[in-house]
C-alpha cells in the first residue's frame, strides 16, 4: 500500500521532467508571444463525468491556472482567457452566480500569487456589468499589478468583441468631439478642419489595447467559431480547435498547437509584415 504513493510520485516527477524537456525542445523554434483561449466545454465535461455544473467551471478554472503555468514555463508572455461573455448573462441565474463566485475566488487567489510573482493581471470587458464588489476587486488587482511585465494574464469578463468595437468607436468619437469643441471655442483652428477618427484612435481605446494581437487562439470542445471573441485582433492569428473539453486541456495538446504554429510561422509573420 505504501509503494503506491511512491510510484505515483515517481511517475509525476518523470512526467514533469519529460514535459520540461519537450518544452525546452519547443523553445528552439519560433514561439508565440500571446496565446488566447476560449474556455469551452466546462458544462459538457461536468455532464460527461456526472458532476454538477459548478464543478465543471471549477475544473475549467484549475485548467486555466495550469495553462498559465505552462505558458510561463514556455516563456509565453501574454495569455488571454475568455472567461465570461456578455451573452452568458442569459444563462440560468444559478450558473451565472457560480461563475461570479468563481471569479471572486480567482481574484483573491491571483491577489495572493501576484504578491510574490511578477504577474500583471488585466480584466478586459465592460466591468460596469459586474457587481460593485467584483468590479472593485478587479480594479484593485489591475492597479496593484500594473507595473509588472514578465507575464501578462488578461481575463475577458463581460466581454464581446462587437461591444469592444462599439465602445472603442464611442470613446474615439467623444475624444474628437471634445477636441472639436475646444478648437471651435478657442478659435485656434485656422483652417476650420475637423480632426478625423483613424484606425489608430480606435485601436488605442480597445479593451485589449494593453496586449499585442494574439499569435494563437485555442478553442476547445471541437468548436470552430470565435463566438464574438477577439475577431478584431485575430487577423493573422493561428486558429486552433481542439477536440477536448477545456478542463481536459493539457501540456501535450498545447505542445501540438505550438508545433502547428511553428509550421505556419513564416507565412503568418510575412502576412503581418505586409500589413
Amino acid at each position, binding site marked *: 500500500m505504501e509503494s503506491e504513493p511512491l510510484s505515483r510520485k515517481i511517475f509525476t516527477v518523470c512526467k514533469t521532467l519529460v514535459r520540461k524537456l519537450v518544452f*525546452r*525542445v*519547443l523553445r*528552439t*523554434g519560433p514561439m508565440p508571444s500571446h496565446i488566447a483561449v476560449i474556455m469551452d466545454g466546462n458544462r459538457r465535461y461536468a455532464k460527461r463525468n456526472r458532476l454538477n455544473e459548478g464543478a465543471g467551471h471549477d475544473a475549467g478554472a484549475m485548467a486555466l491556472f495550469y495553462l498559465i503555468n505552462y505558458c510561463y514555463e514556455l516563456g509565453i508572455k501574454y495569455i488571454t482567457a475568455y472567461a465570461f*461573455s*456578455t*451573452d*452568458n448573462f*442569459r*444563462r440560468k441565474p444559478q450558473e451565472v452566480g457560480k461563475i461570479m463566485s468563481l471569479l471572486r475566488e480567482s481574484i483573491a487567489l491571483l491577489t495572493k500569487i501576484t504578491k510574490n510573482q511578477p504577474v500583471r493581471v488585466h480584466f478586459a470587458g465592460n466591468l*460596469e456589468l459586474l457587481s460593485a464588489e467584483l468590479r472593485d476587486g478587479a480594479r484593485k488587482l489591475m492597479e496593484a499589478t500594473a507595473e509588472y511585465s514578465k507575464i501578462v494574464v488578461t481575463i475577458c469578463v463581460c466581454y*464581446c*468583441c*462587437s461591444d469592444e*468595437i*462599439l465602445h472603442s*468607436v*464611442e470613446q*474615439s*468619437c*467623444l475624444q*474628437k*468631439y*471634445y477636441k*472639436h*469643441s475646444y478648437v471651435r471655442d478657442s478659435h485656434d483652428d485656422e483652417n476650420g478642419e475637423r480632426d*478625423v*477618427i*483613424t*484606425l489608430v*484612435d*480606435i485601436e488605442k481605446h480597445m479593451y485589449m489595447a494593453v496586449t499585442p494581437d494574439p499569435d494563437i487562439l485555442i478553442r476547445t470542445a471541437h*468548436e*470552430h*467559431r*470565435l*463566438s*464574438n471573441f477577439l*475577431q*478584431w485582433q*485575430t*487577423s*493573422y*492569428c*493561428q*486558429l*486552433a480547435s481542439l477536440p477536448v473539453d477545456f478542463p481536459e486541456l493539457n501540456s501535450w495538446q498545447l505542445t*501540438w498547437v505550438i*508545433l*502547428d504554429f*511553428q*509550421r*505556419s510561422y513564416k*507565412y*503568418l509573420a510575412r*502576412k503581418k509584415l505586409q*500589413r
Partner: protein
Amino acid sequence: MDFSRKKRMLRFWTDKIGNILLRMSWHLLHAIIYLCYFTTGMVHALESHLISRGLLRRYKSLHISKINYLAIVIESEDACRTSNVIQLLQWVVALGINHICLYDNEGILKKSKDLILDKFDGAILFQDTHEDNILLDQPCMTLEFVSFSDGKEAVARAANVLLMKYIKSGATGSNQGEQIFTDSQMSEALKTVGSGGPEPDLILIYGPARCHLGFPAWRMRYTEIQHMGPLKSMEYGSLIKAIYRFTTVRQNYGK
C-alpha cells in the same frame, strides 16, 4: 588557471552539443508532425474522393437551407488563380448556395470581379442590392467582393459618420459612461460607407494556415469557420464535408 580554462572549454562544448541535440530533437518533432499531417492528408483525400463519387451515404443529403450566406476567404497569392475561384463558385452554386461573399486581404478578387460575374448568368453584385433583408430573398445569385479595407478601415470610416451625426444631434458630450451608439447604428454607419453586409453562416478559408486574414470583424461574431487548405488543392468532396459538418453544428449563442 589551467583548470578554470578547461572548465570554460568544457562548458562551451557542453552547451554547443546541447544546442545541436535540441535542434535535432526539434527537427525530429517536426518530422513526426509532418508525417502525421501527411497521413491524415491521404485519408482526407481518399474520403473526399469517396464523397465526390457519392459513395458515402451520410453526405448524400445536405440541409443547404441552413446556409443563407456563405463567405469564402482566399489567400491573396491564390486569388489571382481566377479559374480555380470560378470552379469553386460553380461547385457552391451547384450545391444550391446562391449568396456568396468572396474575401481576400489585398482586394485581388475585386479587380477580377467582372471576369467572375461574367461566368455566372444572372449573377448580380452585392452592392447593387439596396436592402440587406431583400438580398437573401433574391432567387438569383449574388456575389459580394470584400477586402481588408472593408474591415478595420471601414469601422474607422463608420466611426466618422457616427461622429458627424453625434455633433449634428447637438449632444453635449456629458453622458460619460453611458452608451451613445447602438449596434444597429453601427451597422447602419457601415452600410453608409459601403461595407455593410449580412453576417455569413459559414466561412471557408482557402489558404496555407487556419487564419481569417482580416475578414470584417463586425460580420463574423458567431460564424462557423472551416479551414480547407490551399486553393490549388481544393476538392469537391472536402467542400461537401465542410458544409455537412456545418449543418450538424448546434450553437447556444452564449446561453
